[in-house]
């Protein structure tokens, strides 16, 4: 119940941002009816979400999002680096590519963790997640350099940190 209140507040805040009438001085856009309709649509979304939640085993705390405060900038820096790498490869006359498949292992507990891992790898140019199953991710790498980067295992470690473990939060990734 408490969680759904938090979600409702977040949804309504998002709706307020998108409807965006409050920059106009004396915005009569924000009269009761419009606000009520906005709130009503948020409640409908929440009800639909609750139905989905019942089918869903992997309960991830919304607080986990806080982990992105450190993970986000790290990922963005990786994206910048590999963008420069791949841009250089694409523009060089010899086109020095060596496409290959790499299979990496990751110790992740939740679907959330796997989704973040697979999406992060795909978002980084030069590596592309093809498949995830049985504790492994199958990755297509464009060059030897990017293949070596992904084999080094920093990505799964960082995501494991983000995921955290139920009790031993401070322990860090297990080798």
């Amino acid at each position, binding site marked *: 119940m408490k969680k759904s209140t938090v979600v409702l507040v977040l949804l309504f805040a998002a709706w307020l941002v998108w409807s965006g009438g409050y920059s106009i001085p004396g915005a009569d856009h924000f009269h009761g009816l419009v606000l009520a309709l906005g709130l009503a649509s948020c409640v409908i979304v929440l009800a639909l979400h609750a139905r989905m939640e019942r089918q869903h085993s992997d309960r991830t705390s919304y607080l986990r999002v806080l982990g992105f405060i450190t993970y986000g900038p790290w990922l963005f820096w990786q*994206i910048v680096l590999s963008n420069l790498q*791949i*841009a250089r490869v*694409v523009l060089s006359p010899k086109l020095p590519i060596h*496409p290959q498949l790499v299979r990496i292992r990751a110790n992740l507990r939740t679907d959330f963790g796997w989704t973040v891992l697979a999406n992060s790898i*795909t978002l980084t*140019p030069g590596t*592309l997640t*093809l498949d995830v199953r049985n504790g492994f991710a199958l990755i297509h790498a464009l060059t030897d350099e990017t293949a070596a980067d992904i084999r080094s295992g920093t990505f799964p470690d960082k995501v494991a940190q983000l995921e955290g473990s139920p009790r031993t939060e401070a322990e860090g990734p297990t080798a």
Partner: protein
Amino acid sequence: MGEALEWIGGMMAIAGSLFCVIGGIGMLRLPDFFSRTHAASIGDSLGAALVLLGLVVYESAQWFQTQESGGSVSVIIKLLLLLGFIYVVSPTATHALAKAAFAGGVRVDSVAAPGSASDEAQSNLDGQEGSPR
């Protein structure tokens, strides 16, 4: 201060567009489906980020100049949320494409022997875009 920020924002947007162009060049130059996907993600990741963050900087310059915060702040929040959505949606779509291609038997190695039977999907793909380099 405001004018300097305007220039920085403009430069970032131009740099972002350059990365989008590089991504396009990569799409044309790279030989096979999966490699081209890598090039496409240049424009989706750093290209989009630089354009949107450039617009954020530009918009905060307006804020410095006019001191009228309401409009700029809501625009900045929207731009940042947009960036977040792109960063979630774009790899998901890329993965869906790549997984479908992989399951459908598109060859992974770009140096596959030409004319082999399993090469059919590959050659169909190349045929539409002109022959690979």
